[in-house]
């Protein structure tokens, strides 16, 4: 009982400290996140090598804005997929729940799907699209979104 009386205030203080630090712990500094960006999606489509081929990722319309209906496109070159890719949208270093974009094949090697990038009240704009290619692996595109 005495132990509880000592532990709970300490835990409470730690919890309060954690919450105060939450914006920095969860959202990290914007400059650090900016360094992670590997895709200039606002201006062009993005390309990454995968296996012996490549994967091209694009979002339309531009500028790419949060809370809008967006069309996601994935093109694969020199890769044979066994199924349509699935895109997982997330924020680096933050749990935002499952936000998946299901793709449909438009022509051979070209897949499209519609989805929405949500807005985070923290104001952070760095998002990540993990493109899962069935039986092959995945590619991460980290980009900036306009709120």
């Amino acid at each position, binding site marked *: 009982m005495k132990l*509880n*009386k000592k532990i*709970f*205030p300490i*835990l*409470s*203080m730690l*919890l*309060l400290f*954690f*919450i*105060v630090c*939450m*914006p920095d712990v*969860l959202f990290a500094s914007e400059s650090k996140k900016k360094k992670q960006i590997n895709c200039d999606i606002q201006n062009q489509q993005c390309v990454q090598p995968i296996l012996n081929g490549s994967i091209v990722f694009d979002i339309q319309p531009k500028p790419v804005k949060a*809370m*809008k*209906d967006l069309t996601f496109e994935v093109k694969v070159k020199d890769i044979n997929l066994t199924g349509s890719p699935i895109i997982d949208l997330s*924020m680096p270093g*933050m*749990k*935002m*729940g*499952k*936000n998946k974009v299901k793709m449909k094949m438009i022509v051979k090697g070209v897949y499209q799907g519609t*989805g*929405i990038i*949500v*807005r*985070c*009240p*923290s*104001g952070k704009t760095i998002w990540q699209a993990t493109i899962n290619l069935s039986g092959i692996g995945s590619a991460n595109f980290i980009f900036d979104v306009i709120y």
Partner: protein
Amino acid sequence: MYIFADTLFWVFLTTGFTVGFGHCIGMCGPIVISMSLNLKTGNTVWPHVLYHTGRVSTYCLLGGIMGVTGSFTMVTSQIALIQKIVLIFAGVLIIFMGVLMSPWLTNFSCFKTGTGVQTFFSKAFSLLVGLKPTLAYFPLGLILGLLPCGPVYTVLIASARAGMEAPDIYTGFINGMVLMLAFGIGTIPALSLVGRLAGVGGIKQRQMIYKAASIIMIGVGIYFVIKGIQY
């Protein structure tokens, strides 16, 4: 086909649980802690139960609307201004609580009993959170359920999709509502734990917590207000 038995229900229940510990503590944690620290006497369980019931009820309503319309962007664009106001309101609420808890600030003459500022804060506080009976925490939860939140948006997208795939509007409403219900229930353990930790301890320990918490709350409240203005 209703979604109750669907794996999606369990997926979003789990999502709510995990996101609750990682994300909701940051957003809703300060509000729950403020509530706990201000519940000095009496039943401290029911206010939390009612607050979460109100919050999850709003989630369910939003999920149902998403399910009926099948359009996330249409609904969120309609409620964007309300959410902005709610975010600012939450910040102001936390600042009020922080000021009223503060043993230092209340020593200043402007906060002493009978002064204009104290009366204003007291009245505002009574209106916002100190309402009797305890039932007042239900509408507070209803309002704060509208706080803009990334994970909530994510589940609302799923609710809209569930509505689009439903054979009729009624099923769409139920499916959208159930997904948000699952998510909302999932977030309760994390926030309840936060509230519990902040609310326990003896009077002396609580006094120590008040001192630190009051300053922290004011800071967090200001952060909320700034984010609300920017939103």
